[in-house]
């Protein structure tokens, strides 16, 4: 396994700038998105009223799109570019990578303009027949298309490396990046197919839209989108986090197996977002629940591997006992503390996810604040904290600088954790009391049934404010690292890939045949969706003309 090197070949240095540009873009997007999030919290708690020129739903659309689609995607493409370039050390050209970045950025700007000018207040799910301006759909499509260039760049590099290193295993970080991007390509085909229906309709070329079909295509993409974030976070948990405490990767083979399972099972599960929809037979919903349970297994494996790695490293250092090991871990290093605090939140995120995917139980929580609480202890907690912690490792690494104000960085990750915990608990609780998500105000003219919700919204706003303070610190530290320009001399690498433990067992060669696993994933997705999609198409549903209701 290749540890990051102090002096890199020239082509790698060019790759560093590419990865850094992706990651710093993600940093700025996270900042804007979090400030919108705070204003939403205040708005829902009736502390402020958003002005007409930038109303709640416009802001909510911006928050969702920036966080779920833009921040995460830019960070992940940057991270994976880094994973592949630094472990293969054979990068010839960064042209494809830069093309991807520019296409993603142009798409983001187009979608952002549409949202800001008020022509696309359709939230990040853009459910038809809410009809946004074509600019929004074009922008979102380009954002996705840009990631395909990045994926092509990574696949090409891995293919070239494999040809030059016949019989060798692809280094683990490059394998995990490739595996995730294959999953992403399969998933994004769904949303691109949806766009092929939405764009002509939005342009006025088609009179109406098959609402159910677009929703099914969206969620075919929408759930693996979640796993795209989680697999990127897992990549860091498996390969980078152990290096922060001098540990090793528990098992190369099991890590690859977990990712292969995620590749296979992330896509054929989307109907669990559509349990409460008419027009879909309950049998299909049940099938997708079963498959969703299947995708829990690689997460169990991941949890085991993380704790096993902690314990092995601690024992090697002579530390024994649960609390002693927990205390021994480097909680003062933000590159560890970010992901580790995220893991704590993910325990709740994971169990909440099992509730949500549990068929009839979903009735209790569907479209309530519980769901909002859930994705803030998944993407907003574990994923964001892992990406933030990784940024603290990557920015110094990629710039050759030392981290600006490391104590501030540490305070920042703990503040994020605290704020997100307060906010998510309040949101989960509000959801159990029945408070709906996605509403600018939940007082319902003082209706008795809504009386218990406001107090929870105030707590959620408090948590949101703490997260917003935290994100300001994040931007200060990340930006300060460039501006302060303190060169790192002989510093230990702040973001290094750990090696696998010496006595780990051999990895079966079949695990490395990602093309075949990708094919299997496509077959499984087709099997899970052939039935419901055929039923949608043969139902001859009436088309909805669509309108702008904002």
């Amino acid at each position, binding site marked *: 396994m290749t540890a990051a090197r102090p002096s890199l070949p020239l082509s790698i240095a060019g790759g560093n700038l590419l990865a850094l540009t992706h990651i710093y873009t993600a940093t700025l997007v996270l900042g804007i998105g979090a400030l919108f999030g705070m204003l939403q919290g205040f708005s829902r708690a009736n502390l402020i009223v958003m002005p007409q020129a930038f109303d709640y*739903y416009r802001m*909510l659309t911006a928050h969702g799109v920036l966080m779920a689609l833009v921040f995460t995607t830019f960070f992940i493409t940057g991270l994976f570019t880094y994973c592949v370039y630094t472990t293969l050390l054979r990068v010839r050209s960064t042209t494809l990578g830069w093309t991807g970045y520019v296409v993603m950025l142009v798409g983001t700007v187009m979608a952002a303009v549409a949202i800001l000018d008020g022509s696309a*207040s359709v*939230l990040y799910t853009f*459910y038809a*027949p*809410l009809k946004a301006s074509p600019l929004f759909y074009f922008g979102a499509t380009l954002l996705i298309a840009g990631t395909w260039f990045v994926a092509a760049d990574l696949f090409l590099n891995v293919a070239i490396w494999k040809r030059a290193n016949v019989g060798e295993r692809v280094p683990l970080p490059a394998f995990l990046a490739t595996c995730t991007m294959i999953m992403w390509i399969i998933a994004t085909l769904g949303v691109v197919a949806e766009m092929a229906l939405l764009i002509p309709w939005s342009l006025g070329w088609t009179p109406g839209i098959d*609402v159910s079909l677009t*929703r099914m295509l969206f969620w075919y993409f929408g759930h693996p989108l979640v796993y795209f974030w989680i697999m990127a976070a897992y990549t860091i948990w498996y390969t980078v986090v152990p290096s922060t405490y001098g540990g090793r990767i528990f098992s190369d*083979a099991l890590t690859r197996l977990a990712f292969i399972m995620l590749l296979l099972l992330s896509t054929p599960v989307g109907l669990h977002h*559509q*349990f*409460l*929809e*008419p*027009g*879909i*037979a*309950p049998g299909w919903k*049940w099938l997708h*629940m*079963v498959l969703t*349970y299947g995708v*829990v*297994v690689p997460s*169990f*494996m991941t949890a*085991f591997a993380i704790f*096993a790695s902690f314990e092995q490293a601690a024992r090697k250092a002579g530390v024994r006992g649960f609390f002693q090991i927990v205390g021994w871990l480097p909680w003062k290093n933000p590159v560890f503390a970010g992901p580790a605090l995220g893991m704590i939140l993910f325990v709740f995120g994971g169990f909440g996810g*099992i509730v949500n995917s*549990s*068929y*009839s139980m*979903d*009735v*209790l929580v*569907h*479209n*309530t604040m519980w769901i909002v609480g859930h994705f803030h202890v998944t993407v907003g907690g574990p994923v964001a904290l892992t990406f933030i912690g990784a940024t603290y490792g990557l920015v110094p690494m990629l710039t050759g600088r030392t981290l600006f104000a490391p104590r501030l960085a540490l305070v920042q990750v703990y503040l994020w954790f605290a704020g997100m915990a307060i906010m998510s608990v309040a949101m989960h609780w509000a959801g159990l*009391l029945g408070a*709906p998500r*996605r*509403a600018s105000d939940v007082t*319902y*003219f003082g*209706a*008795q*049934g*809504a009386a218990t919700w406001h107090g929870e919204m105030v707590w959620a706003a408090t948590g949101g404010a703490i997260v917003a303070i935290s994100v300001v610190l994040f931007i200060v530290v990340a930006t300060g690292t460039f501006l302060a320009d303190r060169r790192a001399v002989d510093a230990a690498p702040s973001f290094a890939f750990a090696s696998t433990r010496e006595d780990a*067992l051999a990895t079966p060669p079949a695990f490395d045949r990602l093309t075949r696993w990708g094919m299997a994933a496509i077959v499984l997705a087709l099997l899970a969706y052939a039935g419901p999609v055929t039923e949608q198409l043969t*139902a*001859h*549903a*009436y088309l*909805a*003309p*669509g*309108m702008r*209701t*904002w």
Partner: protein
Amino acid sequence: MHIHRAERLWLGFGVAMLAVFLAVITTAAIVDGFVPPSHVQTIDPTKVSQTPPFDRPGLRRIGPGAYEAYYIARIFAFVPATITVPRDAHVTFFVTSGDVEHGFSIPETGVNTMVTPGWVSEVSHTFSTPGTFLLICNEYCGSGHQLMAAKVIVQ
């Protein structure tokens, strides 16, 4: 491939837990009918007001203690705005949308369904406690989404 004994135990526990959940939920679905609302019936969303039975939205008594309620969801209101039923009434709600996607939810009851234009949703509930229940749209439908609510009065 060898998997560590502790990991086999852990995964065995995890998979067994999932199997129990699955068995409970599947049994509840088959035996007690706990199935998420999945009514399959199409309707022209541009003609809901002319299409029976939605041409006369409202509550109908279909037997002793049994009712059917027909709702049209449109930005930003439900028709009918209020229905009144006696205690222990079993009400089957049929809902459709005349414009965009809506939600149909009565918090703290099991009533919760999406309302998709082009389709009719069905969900039922027995109201065993008297009071005024809030019925809300719980899917974003536009600038007045937060105002979209109705009432179910149980006497």
